[in-house]
Protein backbone atom coordinates (compact mmCIF):
# COMPACT_ATOMS: atom_id res chain seq x y z
CA UNK A 1 0.00 0.00 0.00
CA UNK A 2 2.81 2.36 0.89
CA UNK A 3 4.28 1.72 -2.54
CA UNK A 4 1.04 2.79 -4.16
CA UNK A 5 1.01 5.92 -2.00
CA UNK A 6 4.61 6.63 -2.92
CA UNK A 7 3.60 6.60 -6.55
CA UNK A 8 0.80 9.03 -5.86
CA UNK A 9 3.38 11.25 -4.22
CA UNK A 10 5.35 11.29 -7.45
CA UNK A 11 8.10 8.90 -6.33
CA UNK A 12 9.14 6.22 -8.80
CA UNK A 13 9.41 2.56 -7.82
CA UNK A 14 13.20 2.87 -7.84
CA UNK A 15 13.07 5.93 -5.65
CA UNK A 16 10.78 4.20 -3.20
CA UNK A 17 13.12 1.22 -3.03
CA UNK A 18 15.96 3.60 -2.35
CA UNK A 19 14.00 5.03 0.57
CA UNK A 20 13.43 1.56 2.01
CA UNK A 21 17.15 0.82 1.68
CA UNK A 22 18.18 4.07 3.32
CA UNK A 23 15.74 3.78 6.22
CA UNK A 24 15.71 0.03 6.65
CA UNK A 25 11.97 0.33 7.22
CA UNK A 26 8.79 1.67 5.69
CA UNK A 27 8.29 5.41 6.06
CA UNK A 28 5.21 6.71 7.84
CA UNK A 29 2.71 8.64 5.76
CA UNK A 30 4.05 11.88 7.13
CA UNK A 31 7.61 10.83 6.31
CA UNK A 32 6.56 9.83 2.84
CA UNK A 33 5.12 13.31 2.30
CA UNK A 34 8.35 14.88 3.52
CA UNK A 35 10.52 12.59 1.40
CA UNK A 36 8.43 13.17 -1.71
CA UNK A 37 8.74 16.94 -1.59
CA UNK A 38 12.41 16.88 -0.67
CA UNK A 39 13.10 14.45 -3.50
CA UNK A 40 10.93 16.32 -5.98
CA UNK A 41 12.59 17.99 -8.91
CA UNK A 42 11.77 21.35 -7.40
CA UNK A 43 13.74 20.79 -4.18
CA UNK A 44 16.35 18.23 -5.16
CA UNK A 45 17.33 19.37 -8.66
CA UNK A 46 17.74 15.69 -9.39
CA UNK A 47 17.79 15.99 -13.17
CA UNK A 48 19.74 19.22 -13.40
CA UNK A 49 22.34 18.96 -10.67
CA UNK A 50 25.03 17.20 -12.70
CA UNK A 51 24.82 19.96 -15.29
CA UNK A 52 24.58 22.94 -12.97
CA UNK A 53 27.93 21.94 -11.48
CA UNK A 54 29.56 23.04 -14.70
CA UNK A 55 28.65 26.71 -14.28
CA UNK A 56 31.26 29.24 -13.18
CA UNK A 57 30.25 30.52 -9.77
CA UNK A 58 33.28 32.25 -8.35
CA UNK A 59 35.17 35.48 -8.69
CA UNK A 60 36.58 38.16 -6.45
CA UNK A 61 33.30 40.05 -6.65
CA UNK A 62 31.21 37.07 -5.54
CA UNK A 63 30.09 37.44 -1.94
CA UNK A 64 27.65 34.55 -2.03
CA UNK A 65 27.39 31.96 -4.76
CA UNK A 66 24.66 29.36 -5.34
CA UNK A 67 23.45 27.38 -2.34
CA UNK A 68 21.92 30.09 -0.20
CA UNK A 69 18.52 31.72 -0.63
CA UNK A 70 20.00 34.19 -3.11
CA UNK A 71 23.36 35.15 -4.58
CA UNK A 72 25.35 38.26 -3.69
CA UNK A 73 28.00 40.39 -5.38
CA UNK A 74 30.20 43.17 -4.04
CA UNK A 75 29.07 46.53 -5.42
CA UNK A 76 31.65 48.56 -3.52
CA UNK A 77 31.29 50.88 -0.58
CA UNK A 78 30.92 47.89 1.76
CA UNK A 79 27.63 46.94 0.09
CA UNK A 80 26.41 43.81 -1.62
CA UNK A 81 23.65 43.42 -4.18
CA UNK A 82 21.64 40.32 -3.36
CA UNK A 83 19.49 38.90 -6.12
CA UNK A 84 17.66 35.88 -7.38
CA UNK A 85 15.16 34.85 -10.00
CA UNK A 86 12.48 32.24 -9.70
CA UNK A 87 9.72 30.72 -11.79
CA UNK A 88 6.07 30.49 -10.87
CA UNK A 89 4.91 29.04 -14.17
CA UNK A 90 2.48 26.32 -13.28
CA UNK A 91 0.64 28.12 -10.47
CA UNK A 92 0.27 31.15 -12.75
CA UNK A 93 -1.30 29.07 -15.49
CA UNK A 94 -3.86 27.69 -13.07
CA UNK A 95 -4.59 30.99 -11.33
CA UNK A 96 -2.76 33.84 -13.07
CA UNK A 97 -3.35 36.62 -10.55
CA UNK A 98 -2.50 34.72 -7.39
CA UNK A 99 0.13 32.58 -9.11
CA UNK A 100 2.10 35.61 -10.25
CA UNK A 101 1.49 37.50 -7.00
CA UNK A 102 2.77 34.70 -4.79
CA UNK A 103 5.72 34.30 -7.15
CA UNK A 104 6.70 37.89 -6.40
CA UNK A 105 6.17 37.26 -2.68
CA UNK A 106 8.44 34.23 -2.76
CA UNK A 107 11.31 35.89 -4.55
CA UNK A 108 11.15 38.91 -2.25
CA UNK A 109 11.47 36.61 0.76
CA UNK A 110 14.50 34.90 -0.75
CA UNK A 111 16.22 38.26 -0.87
CA UNK A 112 15.24 39.91 2.41
CA UNK A 113 15.94 36.63 4.22
CA UNK A 114 19.58 37.44 3.60
CA UNK A 115 19.36 40.80 5.29
CA UNK A 116 18.82 42.87 2.17
CA UNK A 117 16.10 45.44 1.74
CA UNK A 118 14.60 44.65 -1.67
CA UNK A 119 14.98 47.67 -3.97
CA UNK A 120 13.78 46.39 -7.32
CA UNK A 121 11.69 43.72 -8.98
CA UNK A 122 11.93 42.63 -12.60
CA UNK A 123 10.09 39.94 -14.48
CA UNK A 124 10.30 37.88 -17.62
CA UNK A 125 6.96 36.73 -19.00
CA UNK A 126 6.02 34.34 -21.80
CA UNK A 127 2.49 33.92 -23.05
CA UNK A 128 0.94 31.97 -25.90
CA UNK A 129 -0.16 33.50 -29.17
CA UNK A 130 -1.80 36.84 -28.49
CA UNK A 131 -4.91 35.58 -30.29
CA UNK A 132 -5.14 32.33 -28.36
CA UNK A 133 -8.41 32.30 -26.38
CA UNK A 134 -6.63 31.93 -23.04
CA UNK A 135 -3.90 34.50 -23.55
CA UNK A 136 -5.87 37.62 -22.69
CA UNK A 137 -7.07 36.24 -19.37
CA UNK A 138 -3.65 34.92 -18.45
CA UNK A 139 -1.91 38.13 -19.46
CA UNK A 140 -4.20 40.41 -17.47
CA UNK A 141 -4.12 38.09 -14.49
CA UNK A 142 -0.34 37.83 -14.40
CA UNK A 143 0.31 41.53 -14.91
CA UNK A 144 -2.38 42.34 -12.34
CA UNK A 145 -0.89 39.90 -9.84
CA UNK A 146 2.62 41.27 -10.18
CA UNK A 147 1.26 44.79 -9.78
CA UNK A 148 -1.03 43.90 -6.91
CA UNK A 149 1.73 42.32 -4.89
CA UNK A 150 4.75 44.46 -5.79
CA UNK A 151 2.92 47.78 -5.49
CA UNK A 152 1.57 46.93 -2.06
CA UNK A 153 4.86 45.75 -0.56
CA UNK A 154 6.44 48.93 -1.85
CA UNK A 155 9.19 47.43 -3.97
CA UNK A 156 9.30 49.05 -7.40
CA UNK A 157 8.92 46.86 -10.48
CA UNK A 158 11.53 48.45 -12.67
CA UNK A 159 11.86 46.31 -15.75
CA UNK A 160 11.24 43.11 -17.54
CA UNK A 161 10.30 41.55 -20.82
CA UNK A 162 7.26 39.97 -22.40
CA UNK A 163 6.99 37.70 -25.43
CA UNK A 164 4.14 35.91 -27.08
CA UNK A 165 4.62 32.63 -28.91
CA UNK A 166 2.46 29.62 -29.75
CA UNK A 167 4.78 27.31 -27.83
CA UNK A 168 3.55 28.85 -24.57
CA UNK A 169 -0.16 28.42 -25.31
CA UNK A 170 -0.58 25.71 -22.71
CA UNK A 171 2.31 26.60 -20.45
CA UNK A 172 3.07 30.23 -19.76
CA UNK A 173 6.26 31.38 -18.05
CA UNK A 174 6.31 33.77 -15.12
CA UNK A 175 9.88 34.40 -14.00
CA UNK A 176 10.32 36.97 -11.27
CA UNK A 177 13.52 38.61 -10.14
CA UNK A 178 14.33 40.67 -7.06
CA UNK A 179 17.44 42.60 -6.15
CA UNK A 180 18.16 44.04 -2.74
CA UNK A 181 21.08 45.68 -1.01
CA UNK A 182 22.76 44.82 2.29
CA UNK A 183 25.99 45.63 4.07
CA UNK A 184 28.50 42.95 3.12
CA UNK A 185 29.28 42.16 6.75
CA UNK A 186 25.61 41.90 7.65
CA UNK A 187 24.46 39.10 5.37
CA UNK A 188 22.28 36.44 6.96
CA UNK A 189 22.30 32.78 6.08
CA UNK A 190 19.76 30.01 6.23
CA UNK A 191 21.72 27.87 8.60
CA UNK A 192 20.62 26.21 11.86
CA UNK A 193 23.57 26.00 14.21
CA UNK A 194 24.07 25.68 17.94
CA UNK A 195 22.16 22.75 19.41
CA UNK A 196 19.67 24.01 21.95
CA UNK A 197 18.96 27.22 20.07
CA UNK A 198 15.23 27.82 19.71
CA UNK A 199 13.52 27.73 16.32
CA UNK A 200 10.87 30.38 15.76
CA UNK A 201 8.07 30.55 13.27
CA UNK A 202 7.08 34.08 12.21
CA UNK A 203 4.55 35.49 9.79
CA UNK A 204 1.09 34.38 8.74
CA UNK A 205 -0.65 31.33 10.19
CA UNK A 206 -0.52 28.00 8.39
CA UNK A 207 -3.56 26.88 6.43
CA UNK A 208 -4.32 24.01 4.13
CA UNK A 209 -3.43 25.92 0.99
CA UNK A 210 -0.87 24.75 -1.48
CA UNK A 211 -0.39 21.33 -0.01
CA UNK A 212 1.69 19.54 -2.57
CA UNK A 213 2.41 22.65 -4.58
CA UNK A 214 6.08 21.74 -4.79
CA UNK A 215 5.30 18.40 -6.32
CA UNK A 216 2.79 20.00 -8.65
CA UNK A 217 5.41 22.39 -9.98
CA UNK A 218 7.41 19.39 -11.14
CA UNK A 219 4.59 17.59 -12.89
CA UNK A 220 3.68 17.88 -16.50
CA UNK A 221 0.38 19.48 -17.32
CA UNK A 222 -2.32 17.29 -18.74
CA UNK A 223 -5.95 17.74 -19.60
CA UNK A 224 -7.18 17.40 -16.05
CA UNK A 225 -4.68 19.74 -14.47
CA UNK A 226 -7.06 22.68 -14.36
CA UNK A 227 -8.96 20.77 -11.71
CA UNK A 228 -5.98 20.40 -9.39
CA UNK A 229 -7.04 23.66 -7.93
CA UNK A 230 -6.70 23.91 -4.22
CA UNK A 231 -2.92 23.77 -4.61
CA UNK A 232 -2.89 27.46 -5.44
CA UNK A 233 -2.24 29.88 -2.63
CA UNK A 234 -3.55 33.36 -2.02
CA UNK A 235 -0.92 35.94 -1.26
CA UNK A 236 -1.15 38.74 1.27
CA UNK A 237 1.30 41.46 0.26
CA UNK A 238 0.29 43.53 3.26
CA UNK A 239 1.55 40.84 5.60
CA UNK A 240 4.68 40.44 3.49
CA UNK A 241 5.42 44.14 3.88
CA UNK A 242 5.16 43.75 7.66
CA UNK A 243 7.34 40.67 7.46
CA UNK A 244 10.05 42.59 5.59
CA UNK A 245 10.09 45.37 8.15
CA UNK A 246 9.96 43.00 11.11
CA UNK A 247 12.73 40.74 9.82
CA UNK A 248 15.02 43.66 8.98
CA UNK A 249 14.35 45.08 12.44
CA UNK A 250 15.04 41.76 14.16
CA UNK A 251 18.26 41.40 12.18
CA UNK A 252 19.45 44.67 13.68
CA UNK A 253 19.24 43.18 17.17
CA UNK A 254 21.85 40.51 16.54
CA UNK A 255 19.60 37.81 17.97
CA UNK A 256 19.35 35.86 14.73
CA UNK A 257 21.54 32.80 14.13
CA UNK A 258 19.92 31.76 10.87
CA UNK A 259 16.84 32.67 8.90
CA UNK A 260 15.06 31.14 5.94
CA UNK A 261 11.77 31.73 4.18
CA UNK A 262 9.21 28.99 3.80
CA UNK A 263 8.89 28.66 0.07
CA UNK A 264 7.94 25.60 -1.91
CA UNK A 265 7.41 22.65 0.46
CA UNK A 266 7.04 25.17 3.28
CA UNK A 267 8.05 24.19 6.75
CA UNK A 268 9.61 20.95 5.57
CA UNK A 269 12.14 22.25 3.11
CA UNK A 270 12.99 25.33 5.13
CA UNK A 271 13.79 23.36 8.28
CA UNK A 272 15.55 20.53 6.49
CA UNK A 273 17.68 22.93 4.46
CA UNK A 274 18.59 24.94 7.55
CA UNK A 275 19.62 21.79 9.43
CA UNK A 276 21.54 20.56 6.41
CA UNK A 277 23.52 23.79 6.02
CA UNK A 278 24.21 23.90 9.74
CA UNK A 279 25.23 20.24 9.93
CA UNK A 280 22.72 19.81 12.74
CA UNK A 281 19.29 18.36 13.37
CA UNK A 282 15.95 19.96 14.08
CA UNK A 283 13.10 18.99 16.34
CA UNK A 284 9.69 20.56 15.70
CA UNK A 285 6.49 20.48 17.72
CA UNK A 286 3.52 20.67 15.38
CA UNK A 287 0.92 21.88 17.86
CA UNK A 288 3.01 24.97 18.50
CA UNK A 289 2.82 26.09 14.88
CA UNK A 290 0.40 29.02 14.41
CA UNK A 291 -2.49 27.68 12.35
CA UNK A 292 -5.45 29.39 10.83
CA UNK A 293 -7.51 26.28 10.30
CA UNK A 294 -8.75 23.77 12.77
CA UNK A 295 -7.81 20.12 12.95
CA UNK A 296 -4.71 20.21 10.79
CA UNK A 297 -2.50 17.14 11.10
CA UNK A 298 1.30 16.98 10.98
CA UNK A 299 1.31 15.99 7.32
CA UNK A 300 -0.71 19.05 6.39
CA UNK A 301 1.28 21.44 8.54
CA UNK A 302 4.59 20.14 7.20
CA UNK A 303 3.55 20.37 3.57
CA UNK A 304 1.39 23.48 3.58
CA UNK A 305 2.59 26.24 1.30
CA UNK A 306 0.80 29.07 3.01
CA UNK A 307 2.53 32.29 2.11
CA UNK A 308 4.37 34.96 4.07
CA UNK A 309 6.07 32.73 6.64
CA UNK A 310 9.67 32.50 7.84
CA UNK A 311 11.70 30.19 10.04
CA UNK A 312 14.25 31.80 12.36
CA UNK A 313 16.86 30.27 14.62
CA UNK A 314 17.50 32.57 17.58
CA UNK A 315 20.43 32.67 19.97
CA UNK A 316 19.41 31.13 23.29
CA UNK A 317 18.48 33.84 25.75
CA UNK A 318 17.37 36.33 23.08
CA UNK A 319 13.89 34.87 22.66
CA UNK A 320 11.92 37.83 23.94
CA UNK A 321 13.28 40.08 21.20
CA UNK A 322 11.39 38.05 18.64
CA UNK A 323 8.16 38.65 20.49
CA UNK A 324 8.86 42.33 20.92
CA UNK A 325 9.57 42.97 17.24
CA UNK A 326 6.93 40.69 15.75
CA UNK A 327 4.17 41.79 18.07
CA UNK A 328 4.91 45.38 17.18
CA UNK A 329 4.46 44.54 13.51
CA UNK A 330 1.22 42.70 14.30
CA UNK A 331 2.51 39.36 13.03
CA UNK A 332 2.09 35.90 14.44
CA UNK A 333 5.08 34.19 15.93
CA UNK A 334 5.82 31.15 18.05
CA UNK A 335 8.67 28.98 19.20
CA UNK A 336 8.10 25.71 17.41
CA UNK A 337 11.21 23.69 18.15
CA UNK A 338 14.93 23.67 18.60
CA UNK A 339 18.21 22.85 16.97
CA UNK A 340 19.62 19.41 17.90
CA UNK A 341 22.90 17.62 17.40
CA UNK A 342 21.30 14.42 16.16
CA UNK A 343 21.45 15.13 12.45
CA UNK A 344 17.79 14.13 12.26
CA UNK A 345 14.61 15.87 11.25
CA UNK A 346 12.22 15.03 14.06
CA UNK A 347 8.61 16.09 14.21
CA UNK A 348 6.26 15.44 17.10
CA UNK A 349 2.56 16.15 17.29
CA UNK A 350 0.92 15.91 20.71
CA UNK A 351 3.71 13.64 21.90
CA UNK A 352 3.54 11.32 18.92
CA UNK A 353 6.60 11.09 16.69
CA UNK A 354 5.31 11.77 13.18
CA UNK A 355 8.60 12.01 11.41
CA UNK A 356 12.13 10.97 12.34
CA UNK A 357 14.46 10.97 9.36
CA UNK A 358 18.16 11.61 8.93
CA UNK A 359 18.59 15.06 7.34
CA UNK A 360 21.13 13.54 4.95
CA UNK A 361 18.55 11.13 3.52
CA UNK A 362 16.40 14.13 2.65
CA UNK A 363 19.22 16.10 1.09
CA UNK A 364 22.46 14.45 -0.03
CA UNK A 365 20.90 11.00 -0.52
CA UNK A 366 18.25 12.38 -2.83
CA UNK A 367 18.57 10.80 -6.25
CA UNK A 368 20.68 12.44 -8.92
CA UNK A 369 20.08 11.56 -12.54
CA UNK A 370 22.31 11.99 -15.51
CA UNK A 371 19.47 11.55 -17.92
CA UNK A 372 20.07 10.43 -21.48
CA UNK A 373 20.42 13.08 -24.16
CA UNK A 374 19.99 13.16 -27.87
CA UNK A 375 20.23 15.93 -30.39
CA UNK A 376 16.85 16.72 -31.97
CA UNK A 377 16.71 16.32 -35.72
CA UNK A 378 15.52 19.91 -36.19
CA UNK A 379 18.90 21.26 -35.21
CA UNK A 380 20.57 19.97 -38.37
CA UNK A 381 17.52 20.32 -40.55
CA UNK A 382 16.78 23.94 -39.78
CA UNK A 383 17.03 26.17 -42.81
CA UNK A 384 17.37 29.93 -42.80
CA UNK A 385 14.00 31.52 -43.45
CA UNK A 386 13.65 33.49 -46.64
CA UNK A 387 12.18 36.92 -46.21
CA UNK A 388 11.49 38.80 -49.41
CA UNK A 389 11.70 42.55 -49.09
CA UNK A 390 8.49 44.25 -50.13
CA UNK A 391 8.10 47.50 -52.00
CA UNK A 392 6.66 49.22 -48.96
CA UNK A 393 9.52 49.27 -46.49
CA UNK A 394 7.94 52.02 -44.44
CA UNK A 395 4.74 50.03 -44.15
CA UNK A 396 6.73 47.00 -43.07
CA UNK A 397 8.46 49.02 -40.41
CA UNK A 398 5.19 50.32 -39.03
CA UNK A 399 3.81 46.79 -38.98
CA UNK A 400 6.90 45.54 -37.19
CA UNK A 401 6.76 48.27 -34.58
CA UNK A 402 3.17 47.32 -33.86
CA UNK A 403 3.88 43.59 -33.55
CA UNK A 404 3.01 42.09 -30.17
CA UNK A 405 6.63 41.18 -29.49
CA UNK A 406 8.01 44.61 -30.38
CA UNK A 407 5.38 47.20 -29.51
CA UNK A 408 5.54 49.48 -26.48
CA UNK A 409 5.23 47.84 -23.06
CA UNK A 410 3.76 50.94 -21.47
CA UNK A 411 0.36 49.33 -20.76
CA UNK A 412 2.21 46.82 -18.63
CA UNK A 413 4.68 48.89 -16.72
CA UNK A 414 2.29 51.75 -16.01
CA UNK A 415 0.41 49.29 -13.83
CA UNK A 416 3.55 48.72 -11.80
CA UNK A 417 4.70 51.21 -9.21
CA UNK A 418 8.18 51.64 -10.62
CA UNK A 419 9.19 54.65 -8.55
CA UNK A 420 8.55 53.82 -4.90
CA UNK A 421 11.73 53.77 -2.84
CA UNK A 422 13.25 56.78 -4.60
CA UNK A 423 15.85 54.60 -6.30
CA UNK A 424 14.63 54.49 -9.88
CA UNK A 425 17.02 56.57 -11.97
CA UNK A 426 16.19 54.75 -15.19
CA UNK A 427 12.95 52.82 -15.03
CA UNK A 428 10.98 50.79 -17.53
CA UNK A 429 10.95 52.28 -20.98
CA UNK A 430 14.03 54.43 -20.45
CA UNK A 431 17.02 52.16 -20.98
CA UNK A 432 18.09 48.60 -21.74
CA UNK A 433 18.47 47.89 -18.04
CA UNK A 434 16.90 49.37 -14.95
CA UNK A 435 19.18 51.68 -12.99
CA UNK A 436 18.65 52.03 -9.25
CA UNK A 437 20.63 54.35 -7.05
CA UNK A 438 20.96 53.46 -3.41
CA UNK A 439 19.65 56.44 -1.43
CA UNK A 440 22.06 57.63 1.20
CA UNK A 441 25.12 56.58 -0.84
CA UNK A 442 26.57 57.64 -4.17
CA UNK A 443 26.29 54.09 -5.47
CA UNK A 444 23.97 52.69 -8.05
CA UNK A 445 23.30 49.36 -9.69
CA UNK A 446 21.81 48.22 -12.97
CA UNK A 447 19.73 45.11 -13.53
CA UNK A 448 18.23 43.39 -16.54
CA UNK A 449 16.54 40.12 -17.48
CA UNK A 450 16.73 38.67 -20.98
CA UNK A 451 16.49 35.65 -23.21
CA UNK A 452 15.41 35.07 -26.78
CA UNK A 453 14.02 31.57 -26.61
CA UNK A 454 13.60 31.25 -30.36
CA UNK A 455 17.36 31.50 -30.71
CA UNK A 456 17.78 28.95 -27.95
CA UNK A 457 15.33 26.62 -29.68
CA UNK A 458 17.29 26.87 -32.92
CA UNK A 459 20.62 26.36 -31.20
CA UNK A 460 20.62 25.94 -27.43
CA UNK A 461 24.35 26.44 -27.10
CA UNK A 462 24.66 29.58 -29.22
CA UNK A 463 21.26 30.87 -28.14
CA UNK A 464 22.16 30.75 -24.47
CA UNK A 465 25.50 32.39 -25.10
CA UNK A 466 23.56 35.14 -26.85
CA UNK A 467 21.24 35.48 -23.85
CA UNK A 468 24.18 35.96 -21.50
CA UNK A 469 25.72 38.42 -23.92
CA UNK A 470 22.46 40.34 -24.24
CA UNK A 471 21.75 40.62 -20.55
CA UNK A 472 25.29 41.73 -19.68
CA UNK A 473 25.34 44.13 -22.63
CA UNK A 474 22.08 45.69 -21.50
CA UNK A 475 23.60 46.29 -18.08
CA UNK A 476 26.82 47.62 -19.56
CA UNK A 477 24.95 50.05 -21.84
CA UNK A 478 23.82 52.03 -18.82
CA UNK A 479 27.42 52.51 -17.72
CA UNK A 480 27.47 49.76 -15.09
CA UNK A 481 29.99 46.96 -14.88
CA UNK A 482 28.24 43.57 -14.94
CA UNK A 483 29.19 41.64 -11.82
CA UNK A 484 27.08 38.52 -11.61
CA UNK A 485 24.18 36.67 -13.13
CA UNK A 486 21.32 34.50 -11.99
CA UNK A 487 19.32 32.15 -14.15
CA UNK A 488 15.88 30.67 -14.34
CA UNK A 489 15.99 27.60 -16.54
CA UNK A 490 12.58 26.84 -18.03
CA UNK A 491 12.66 23.62 -20.01
CA UNK A 492 10.35 20.80 -21.04
CA UNK A 493 10.16 17.21 -19.87
CA UNK A 494 13.64 16.06 -18.76
CA UNK A 495 12.82 12.40 -19.34
CA UNK A 496 12.77 13.26 -23.03
CA UNK A 497 16.40 12.91 -24.19
CA UNK A 498 15.99 15.77 -26.65
CA UNK A 499 14.98 18.13 -23.87
CA UNK A 500 17.88 16.97 -21.76
CA UNK A 501 20.18 17.64 -24.67
CA UNK A 502 18.79 21.16 -24.97
CA UNK A 503 19.39 21.61 -21.27
CA UNK A 504 22.98 20.38 -21.35
CA UNK A 505 23.77 22.47 -24.40
CA UNK A 506 22.26 25.57 -22.83
CA UNK A 507 24.37 25.07 -19.73
CA UNK A 508 27.47 24.61 -21.87
CA UNK A 509 26.79 27.91 -23.62
CA UNK A 510 25.94 29.70 -20.40
CA UNK A 511 29.08 28.49 -18.67
CA UNK A 512 31.27 29.63 -21.53
CA UNK A 513 29.67 33.04 -21.87
CA UNK A 514 29.55 33.78 -18.15
CA UNK A 515 33.22 32.90 -17.88
CA UNK A 516 34.19 35.00 -20.88
CA UNK A 517 32.23 38.00 -19.65
CA UNK A 518 33.28 37.58 -16.03
CA UNK A 519 29.68 37.42 -14.92
CA UNK A 520 29.59 34.31 -12.72
CA UNK A 521 26.31 32.61 -11.86
CA UNK A 522 25.55 33.32 -8.21
CA UNK A 523 22.13 31.71 -8.00
CA UNK A 524 19.41 30.21 -10.05
CA UNK A 525 16.31 28.17 -10.40
CA UNK A 526 15.26 25.26 -12.57
CA UNK A 527 11.74 24.71 -13.82
CA UNK A 528 11.24 21.47 -15.77
CA UNK A 529 8.20 19.75 -17.23
CA UNK A 530 7.10 22.93 -18.99
CA UNK A 531 4.93 21.17 -21.52
CA UNK A 532 1.28 20.73 -22.24
CA UNK A 533 -0.44 17.96 -24.12
CA UNK A 534 2.97 16.43 -24.82
CA UNK A 535 4.32 19.56 -26.45
CA UNK A 536 7.32 21.21 -24.86
CA UNK A 537 7.95 24.93 -24.71
CA UNK A 538 10.96 26.46 -26.40
CA UNK A 539 13.92 26.00 -24.09
CA UNK A 540 13.90 29.28 -22.16
CA UNK A 541 16.94 29.91 -19.97
CA UNK A 542 16.13 33.36 -18.64
CA UNK A 543 19.17 35.32 -17.47
CA UNK A 544 19.26 38.09 -14.95
CA UNK A 545 22.30 40.29 -14.47
CA UNK A 546 23.32 42.89 -11.91
CA UNK A 547 26.08 45.42 -12.40
CA UNK A 548 27.36 48.33 -10.38
CA UNK A 549 28.47 51.91 -10.89
CA UNK A 550 31.46 53.32 -9.10
CA UNK A 551 29.47 56.49 -8.70
CA UNK A 552 26.09 57.88 -9.67
CA UNK A 553 27.83 60.20 -12.11
CA UNK A 554 28.71 57.27 -14.39
CA UNK A 555 25.09 56.59 -15.21
CA UNK A 556 24.52 57.14 -18.92
CA UNK A 557 21.47 58.90 -20.21
CA UNK A 558 19.58 55.76 -21.19
CA UNK A 559 18.40 54.80 -24.64
CA UNK A 560 16.81 57.96 -25.88
CA UNK A 561 17.67 60.35 -28.60
CA UNK A 562 18.46 63.60 -26.84
CA UNK A 563 19.11 66.52 -29.11
CA UNK A 564 19.33 67.42 -32.74
CA UNK A 565 22.88 67.02 -34.07
CA UNK A 566 23.81 64.32 -31.55
CA UNK A 567 26.21 61.88 -33.15
CA UNK A 568 25.01 58.37 -33.90
CA UNK A 569 27.65 55.65 -33.86
CA UNK A 570 27.48 51.93 -34.51
CA UNK A 571 29.78 49.99 -32.22
CA UNK A 572 30.73 46.32 -32.52
CA UNK A 573 31.03 43.92 -35.42
Amino acid sequence: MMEELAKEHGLSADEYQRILDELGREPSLCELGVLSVMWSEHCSYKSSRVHLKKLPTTGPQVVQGPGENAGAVDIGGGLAAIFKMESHNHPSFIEPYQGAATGVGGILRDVFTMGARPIGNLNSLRFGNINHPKTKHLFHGVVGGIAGYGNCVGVPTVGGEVYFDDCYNGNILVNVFTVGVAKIDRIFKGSATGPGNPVFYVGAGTGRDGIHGATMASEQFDEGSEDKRPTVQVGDPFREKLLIEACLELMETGAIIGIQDMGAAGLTSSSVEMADRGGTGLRLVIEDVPMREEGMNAYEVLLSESQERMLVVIAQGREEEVGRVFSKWELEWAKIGEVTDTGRFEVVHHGKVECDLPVSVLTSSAPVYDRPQSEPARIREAQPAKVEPTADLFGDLVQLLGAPNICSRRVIYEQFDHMVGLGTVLGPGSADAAVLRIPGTNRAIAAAVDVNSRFVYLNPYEGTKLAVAEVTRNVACTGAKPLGTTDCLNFGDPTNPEIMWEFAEAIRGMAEACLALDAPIVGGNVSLYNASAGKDIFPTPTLGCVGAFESESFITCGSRVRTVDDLVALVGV
Partner: protein
Amino acid sequence: MPRARVLIHNRKGVFDPAGKVVEGGLERLGHQVKSVKVGKVIDLHFESGTSEEILAQVEKMCRELLVNPVIEDYVVEIEE
Protein backbone atom coordinates in the same frame (compact mmCIF):
# COMPACT_ATOMS: atom_id res chain seq x y z
CA MET B 1 -37.77 43.49 -13.38
CA PRO B 2 -36.03 40.26 -12.40
CA ARG B 3 -32.81 40.46 -10.50
CA ALA B 4 -30.11 37.97 -9.60
CA ARG B 5 -27.57 38.30 -6.87
CA VAL B 6 -24.27 36.43 -6.90
CA LEU B 7 -22.42 36.18 -3.60
CA ILE B 8 -18.77 35.26 -3.96
CA HIS B 9 -16.40 34.27 -1.18
CA ASN B 10 -12.99 32.69 -1.02
CA ARG B 11 -13.32 28.93 -0.83
CA LYS B 12 -13.05 27.20 2.48
CA GLY B 13 -9.40 26.84 3.34
CA VAL B 14 -8.34 29.67 1.03
CA PHE B 15 -6.91 32.56 2.97
CA ASP B 16 -9.03 35.71 3.20
CA PRO B 17 -6.59 38.50 4.06
CA ALA B 18 -9.24 41.22 3.92
CA GLY B 19 -11.44 39.37 6.41
CA LYS B 20 -8.54 39.03 8.76
CA VAL B 21 -7.75 42.73 8.64
CA VAL B 22 -11.38 43.74 9.17
CA GLU B 23 -11.57 41.36 12.11
CA GLY B 24 -8.59 43.13 13.68
CA GLY B 25 -10.17 46.53 13.07
CA LEU B 26 -13.46 45.56 14.68
CA GLU B 27 -11.63 44.17 17.66
CA ARG B 28 -9.71 47.40 18.05
CA LEU B 29 -13.08 49.17 18.15
CA GLY B 30 -14.09 46.89 21.00
CA HIS B 31 -16.47 44.65 19.08
CA GLN B 32 -16.63 40.98 19.87
CA VAL B 33 -16.77 38.96 16.72
CA LYS B 34 -15.74 35.38 16.11
CA SER B 35 -14.76 35.64 12.47
CA VAL B 36 -15.18 37.85 9.44
CA LYS B 37 -15.23 36.98 5.76
CA VAL B 38 -15.11 39.61 3.06
CA GLY B 39 -16.45 38.79 -0.37
CA LYS B 40 -18.01 40.27 -3.45
CA VAL B 41 -21.64 40.71 -4.36
CA ILE B 42 -22.72 41.15 -7.95
CA ASP B 43 -26.26 42.27 -8.63
CA LEU B 44 -27.55 41.64 -12.11
CA HIS B 45 -30.71 43.21 -13.44
CA PHE B 46 -32.54 41.76 -16.40
CA GLU B 47 -35.22 43.07 -18.72
CA SER B 48 -37.22 39.89 -18.51
CA GLY B 49 -37.05 36.15 -18.03
CA THR B 50 -38.38 33.48 -15.72
CA SER B 51 -36.48 32.50 -12.60
CA GLU B 52 -35.33 29.29 -14.27
CA GLU B 53 -34.05 31.04 -17.35
CA ILE B 54 -32.22 33.61 -15.31
CA LEU B 55 -30.74 31.09 -12.95
CA ALA B 56 -29.40 29.07 -15.86
CA GLN B 57 -27.96 32.16 -17.47
CA VAL B 58 -26.35 33.45 -14.29
CA GLU B 59 -24.81 30.06 -13.57
CA LYS B 60 -23.25 30.26 -17.00
CA MET B 61 -21.95 33.77 -16.33
CA CYS B 62 -20.40 32.60 -13.11
CA ARG B 63 -18.55 29.82 -14.87
CA GLU B 64 -17.47 32.01 -17.74
CA LEU B 65 -16.51 35.22 -16.02
CA LEU B 66 -17.76 36.17 -12.60
CA VAL B 67 -16.20 33.53 -10.41
CA ASN B 68 -12.71 32.13 -10.22
CA PRO B 69 -13.38 28.52 -9.18
CA VAL B 70 -9.75 28.00 -8.23
CA ILE B 71 -10.17 30.09 -5.14
CA GLU B 72 -13.80 31.17 -4.99
CA ASP B 73 -17.18 29.68 -4.12
CA TYR B 74 -20.47 31.32 -5.00
CA VAL B 75 -24.19 31.29 -4.38
CA VAL B 76 -26.84 32.64 -6.74
CA GLU B 77 -30.05 34.15 -5.40
CA ILE B 78 -32.90 35.04 -7.74
CA GLU B 79 -35.47 37.71 -6.95
CA GLU B 80 -38.42 38.59 -9.04
